[in-house]
């Protein structure tokens, strides 16, 4: 199976409409990511928040595809939606994590606190966006590989083989630690 990005290759074709279709798809993926992120942090029910995270990950997978990384787009869907979101949903089923009703938990500062959070978030977004837009990003003069799946596999097993082994160790320790922690709570009762 050839995993080269079809959309980006098809962009400079003879048909001028194809370019606008590609642009429309790109804007759709950006909008999906932004909407998913907003849903993930602003809903009251946690299950909707998880759905927002999944939506944002779909949009991110599309953006990865536009960045000539179709392998990462696949992995984003597989790991984030297939593993992370499903695991969080299991956590939602085991605990009852809905945001408490406002009358049972009075917030000490109902107006100031959200305002401060919005101002801090807007400051971070504005500052980083200004930095990103203000800098002139220059393309490298030469590339040592083409970023294809074959190049990723070669680097993963040569240059980054040590990190590859270490990440598998980290995952093993994390799974064992998760089992121990979750089991310790059970035996106590």
């Amino acid at each position, binding site marked *: 199976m050839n995993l080269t990005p079809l959309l980006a290759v098809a962009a400079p074709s003879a048909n001028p409409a194809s370019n606008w279709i590609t642009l429309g798809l790109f804007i759709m993926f950006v909008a999906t990511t932004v909407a998913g992120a907003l849903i993930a942090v602003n809903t009251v029910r946690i299950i909707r928040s998880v759905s927002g995270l999944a939506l*944002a990950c779909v949009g991110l997978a599309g953006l990865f595809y536009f960045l000539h990384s179709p392998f990462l787009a696949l992995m984003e869907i597989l790991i984030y939606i297939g593993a992370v979101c499903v695991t969080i949903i299991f956590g939602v089923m085991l605990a009852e994590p809905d945001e408490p009703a406002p009358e049972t938990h009075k917030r000490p500062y109902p107006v100031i606190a959200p305002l401060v959070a919005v101002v801090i978030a807007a400051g971070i*977004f504005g500052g980083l966006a200004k930095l990103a837009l203000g800098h002139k990003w220059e393309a490298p003069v030469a590339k040592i590989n083409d970023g294809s799946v074959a190049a990723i596999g070669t680097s993963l097993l040569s240059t980054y083989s040590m990190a590859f082994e270490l990440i598998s160790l980290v995952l093993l320790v994390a799974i064992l630690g998760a089992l121990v922690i979750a089991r310790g709570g059970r035996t106590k009762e």
Partner: protein
Amino acid sequence: MTLAHLYEQPDVYLVVAAFLLATGIFGLMRRRTLIGMLISGELIFASAGLNFVAMSRFVSPDPAAGQIAVLFLMGIAAAEVAIALSIIIAVYRNYRSIVSKELSEMKG
């Protein structure tokens, strides 16, 4: 920066990544339950990944390096979620709640 080739510019990806980071930090400040904070943390991870890939696609001479970094980042994120959820379940067993305000007592 032309509109027709918007997806060939690094700026728009970086702005989207900055937006994801800002929403993640906003969620970390506003969420009152541990799972909500965990979801916000995942948004921050996603923002870092998008930044890595955009930089390696447009600026770096080695386009595979950023993609490999994001693969490792996904592994770290998956490990983090596994650990955090097991902690959340252990906390829920002890406190019958995962609202972060009620978890304010410590006992050795």
